[in-house]
């Protein structure tokens, strides 16, 4: 049991941290028009990561597949009771509450992406922006629950659950692991990310430079003449 075996494939690890980073980035860029383009890039990254995960749930490695998830209420109850008794029922892949997070976060994420796209496309009224914010806030609460849960289980189970999401490795019997970390799929994921962000940042630089130039022309060209309007 003391062997370190490969459990989480590389694309799954990249997905996890890309999803986390794009969600955090979208929150940080939510309130200002100065970074609206970065918010959009975070949103596209976020929805792209979710699309990848939906695919990977069917074609990914053993522990990444949706068919490996056990998240029924019975499974979660048994697992939580085992934690409370001090004899954690260890899962090599997703534990039952962790498995619950997958449909929850992916579903909320799709709702956030759809409402965000609708806001940007002016597809409806201000209520869409409200819906977008509410869905994002609900996801923030779910993420907080997820992080607290991981910390609690890491302590109760005396096992760092975060580190394997970087290294891919956990303690386990050799037969239970996965053979390949699927580096090619991870590389394609990173190429897609670069294909989104590099032109996105270049376009941002171009637009900001153009606006600075037109602002300086306006400042040099004409004194700030004020048309006399009537006094209300």
């Amino acid at each position, binding site marked *: 049991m003391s062997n370190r075996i490969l459990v989480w494939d590389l694309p799954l690890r990249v997905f996890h941290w890309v999803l986390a980073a794009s969600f955090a980035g979208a929150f940080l860029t939510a*309130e*200002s*028009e*100065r*970074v*609206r*383009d970065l918010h*959009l890039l975070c949103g596209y990254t976020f929805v792209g990561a979710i699309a990848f995960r939906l695919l990977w749930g069917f074609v990914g490695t053993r522990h990444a597949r949706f068919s490996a998830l056990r998240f029924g209420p019975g499974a979660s109850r048994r697992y939580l009771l085992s934690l409370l008794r001090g004899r954690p029922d260890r899962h090599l892949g997703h534990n039952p509450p962790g498995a619950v997070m997958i449909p929850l976060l992916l579903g909320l994420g799709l709702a956030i992406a759809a409402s965000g796209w609708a806001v*940007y496309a002016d597809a409806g*009224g*201000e209520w869409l*922006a*409200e819906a977008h914010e509410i869905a994002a806030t609900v996801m923030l609460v779910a993420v907080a629950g997820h992080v607290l849960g991981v910390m609690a289980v890491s302590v109760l189970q005396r096992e760092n659950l975060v580190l394997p999401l970087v290294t891919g490795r956990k303690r386990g019997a050799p037969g239970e692991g996965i053979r390949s970390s699927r580096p090619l799929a991870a590389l394609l994921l990173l190429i897609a990310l670069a294909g989104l962000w590099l032109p996105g940042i270049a376009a*941002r630089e171009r*637009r*900001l430079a153009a*606006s*600075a130039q037109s*602002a300086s022309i*306006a400042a040099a060209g004409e004194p*700030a003449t*004020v*048309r*006399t*309007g*009537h*006094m*209300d």
Partner: protein
Amino acid sequence: MRSTILVAAAFALGVAAARAETPADFEAAFAAEARRADPAFAGFSAARGQQFFGSTHGGDWSCVSCHTKDPSAVGEHVVTGKRIEPLAPAANPKRFSDPASVEKWFKRNCNDVLKRLCTAQEKGDVLAWLMMPGAGGGR
């Protein structure tokens, strides 16, 4: 007694603000708020509003950066390039029709341009300018 009147007045103001549906409603609500902030409030000025709209307030952006100098014109977002519908109510009847939207965009855009919230006086001045005859198109 006095506090009761104040509470009633504040409530009435709140109701008036909540029911604001036309540019004139918003102007009245901004005027009431400006009067509360400064008893010497002497009305809004379209000229001051226009100047405010074009000023960068010591920063790099002004309202004009995205909305253009002409309130009846279609603007363009500085960083996304997205089309921005005209601000003048006469050119775009959707403007100043929804309190939640007006509050949200003044808050966000004032923070982006001035790094603070706008006062009721400033908002009223700008609105007075946007409502000026001729601001609404046909030019």
